[in-house]
């Protein structure tokens, strides 16, 4: 075979993979808010409206609903998409101590496999939440399913167990009164979990291959439901893990947990920070944008801080010079990402736990009653469509390969123009 063709075949996947790092690549959505945790899929071309029935066929779910799959038990985690599969977590049992990992075929919605585990940590949580609250994560080869009981399960894409860690068993007092919710984060060969609570409070980095602890850091004993995030460096070796805690933002080296820098400020304990082009948009004092600093002794400094941009329970989204925040009113606010100046506001309805995702020119916002309000973005935002799932939706949706996936209380939905 022509050596240049061989070389191209070896190099091209790496180039594509690298290009996919910045935004959610076509076929995968690997963790909470997508591959880089930004919640943005700018090239996705998704339906705006769905669910209106065009036929009397009872099997026809309605326009643009490719399929709907039944889910066992309960869960408020978001789905992820990897390797042609949609992965969802759930819990069941009278004490919510049966932990499920389910894999559905992207094309058909058929259940490919399901694995169950027994919780080894505490399963007490608020009725609004669930033991299956953290969104799972993947590195493209393995699935890391985390639960409020602090059990962390690693499976390959065929459902074979690679390892199991009962972090709640190791630390029995690690629990919050309404349950834990921080989603795991994969950076390189490390899966990071943030287990901040009033008991044994810690963050840890585990080897993705074995589940062995690379590092474990004691954290402030205080309730916290935010998820760790990645701050991309100029190259992968420069990537940092950001831990948002009540009194401080910490940047750590992923593989060692070494502290790179910290920024002391009061941070929100529910909506999580997001990053864009090296800036950190932190739910603190409303919303505070942090930029790299050249000042001696400082790694970051405040670019701007705007009290009017305080998010409610869902996390902010930043793209193309704009920041989008849903507050508790609820109102969707669009602001200039460089200055924090509010550009427009749009009234939404309901309470929002799921973080919105940006796909194409639209922002998909789904409230906790399952009403998805699709907002057309522009000089002014306007609601392009409202789509009612008919059941609660609290997990952040996933976008992959021309489809958007919503995890409802009882069903997983694939919304796509092509079935």
């Amino acid at each position, binding site marked *: 075979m022509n050596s240049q063709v061989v070389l191209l075949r070896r190099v091209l996947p790496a180039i594509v993979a690298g290009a996919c790092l910045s935004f959610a690549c076509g076929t995968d959505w690997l963790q909470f808010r997508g591959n880089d945790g930004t919640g943005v899929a700018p090239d996705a071309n998704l339906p705006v409206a769905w669910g209106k029935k065009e036929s009397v066929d009872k099997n026809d779910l309605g326009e643009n609903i490719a399929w709907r799959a039944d889910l066992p038990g309960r869960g408020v985690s978001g789905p992820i998409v990897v390797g042609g599969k949609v992965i969802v977590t759930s819990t069941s049992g009278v004490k919510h101590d049966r932990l499920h990992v389910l894999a559905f075929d992207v094309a058909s919605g058929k259940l490919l496999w399901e694995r169950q585990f027994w919780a080894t940590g505490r399963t007490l949580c608020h009725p609004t939440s669930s033991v299956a609250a953290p969104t799972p994560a993947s590195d493209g080869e393995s699935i890391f399913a985390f639960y409020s009981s602090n059990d962390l399960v690693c499976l390959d894409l065929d*459902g074979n*167990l690679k390892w199991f860690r009962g972090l709640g068993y190791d630390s029995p007092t690690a629990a919050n*009164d309404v349950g834990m919710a921080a989603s795991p984060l994969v950076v390189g060969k490390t899966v990071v979990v943030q287990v901040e609570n009033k008991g044994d409070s810690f963050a840890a980095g*585990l080897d993705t291959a*074995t589940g062995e602890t690379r590092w474990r850091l004691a954290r402030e004993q205080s309730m916290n439901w935010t998820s760790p995030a990645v701050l991309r460096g100029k190259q992968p070796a420069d990537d940092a893990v950001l831990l948002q805690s009540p009194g401080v933002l910490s940047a750590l080296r992923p593989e060692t947990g070494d502290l790179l820098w910290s920024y002391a400020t009061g941070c929100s304990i529910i909506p999580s920070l997001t990053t864009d082009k090296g800036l950190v948009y932190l739910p603190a004092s409303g919303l505070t944008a942090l930029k790299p600093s050249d000042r001696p002794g400082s790694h970051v400094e405040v670019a701007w801080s705007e009290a009017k941009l305080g998010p409610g329970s869902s996390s902010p989204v930043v793209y193309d010079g704009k920041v989008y925040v849903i507050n508790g009113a609820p109102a969707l606010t669009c602001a200039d990402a460089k200055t924090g100046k509010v550009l427009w506001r749009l009234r939404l309805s309901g309470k929002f736990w799921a973080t919105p995702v940006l796909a194409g020119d639209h922002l998909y916002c789904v409230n906790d009653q399952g009403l998805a309000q699709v907002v057309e973005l522009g000089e002014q935002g306007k609601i392009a469509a409202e789509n009612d799932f008919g059941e609660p939706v609290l997990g952040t949706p996933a976008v992959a390969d021309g489809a958007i996936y919503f995890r409802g209380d009882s069903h997983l939905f694939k919304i796509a123009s092509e079935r």
Partner: protein
Amino acid sequence: MRMQNPIIKKRRLGTIAALLFAAAASAGIISQSAAAEKTPARFSGPKFAQALKTLRSVEPNGVDNAAAAQAWGDVAAAGAAQLPTVLAAIDEAGPLGANWLSAAVQTIADRQLKQGDKLPAAELEAFVLDKQHAPRGRRLAFEWLVRADNTAADRLTPGFLFDPSPELRRDAVARLIAEGDKLVKPRTKGVHKGVGRDDRGPQESPEVAQKVYDKALSGAVDLDQVKKLKTELEKLGEKVDLPLHFGFVTRWKVIGPFDNTGEKGFDVVYPPEKAIELDAEYEGKPLEGKARQVKWIDFETQDDYGIVDLNAAVGKANGVAAYAWAEFNSPSEQPAELRLGRDNANKMWLNGKVIHEQRVYHSGADMDQFIGRGQLRKGKNTILVKVLQNEQKEEWAQTWGFQLRVCDATGVAIKPQTAAENSPSNVKK
């Protein structure tokens, strides 16, 4: 490219012989027992046993995960004939090991079904019915059995009413509840007409429904099912004593408040921890700067769930600790669980030995939230509970109290002998 667990991938080629035997057995070409006999030695020999042992004894903190992963690959590559063996390994596994083993069971069984082969239903049923096995393993076996035999659930579930597995028991209770519900369901309008028509269920009288609900209650251990049965039985005129059913201790001697300023009281050994002297008085936490003495008082809770409100018992305060003490007369020597619920820091002693402690405040409360395990003596036992309140100001942080019940590992109340039965005047000479 889809990636496989390299351990499974490596082993897959080697399991073809075992799979062929299993396939032949399911096709009736050879018997299951013959298939088991012909199973490669590596699924029945010392190496397999060692792999099971490795999984059973997985350590905390992930320290032996690499070895566990290797062992898991060895076990998960086994054929369906080995399911009972792998399930049985759960008997002696801790919570971590049980999960590794359970995953292997699921992988083996799932693979068998996806290949179009049958699961060993007879062997699974035998495993389910053998109560010597761990409840979790039996429940897992049952969940796969019902996929292999669609008559199993109907045949076996009624027999689970007093099963040591809470999940199997729950299914049995659920069936009886459903049966009772049908018996009390009002008749459909217009179906039965005429003078003196009654509106009860189409088949029987409420007396039958009451018996069905009573039977269900006799086996129920889950709060939601007990609540449902209480509601239905009370509609039929029968009172349900929840504290008696669950085994809540409702009569206590209580003393306090002692000082817990700055949450430092948890480690302070106040006099009740040294000896129980019911006539004694001790120095308590000063009240408005003035010294005060505290002494034991009688406190009986009327709460359906045995909640002892310490704010009511010793006075509302913050930064304080109180003790509650009770005697429990056990009909026999037996293992027991003391299940405590509430959201204050707490500590439990059984017969003078600490069986549980936790230092977190106001992190949620639930029945059976904390479990202390110990051995009851035949006759008199003593239970001591220390419950601490901190200095949080939030309204939701002002609860100070607890509930405690005595039960077996399944959650069934251990009924104490009554005081009358234990009275010296009743002792036969």
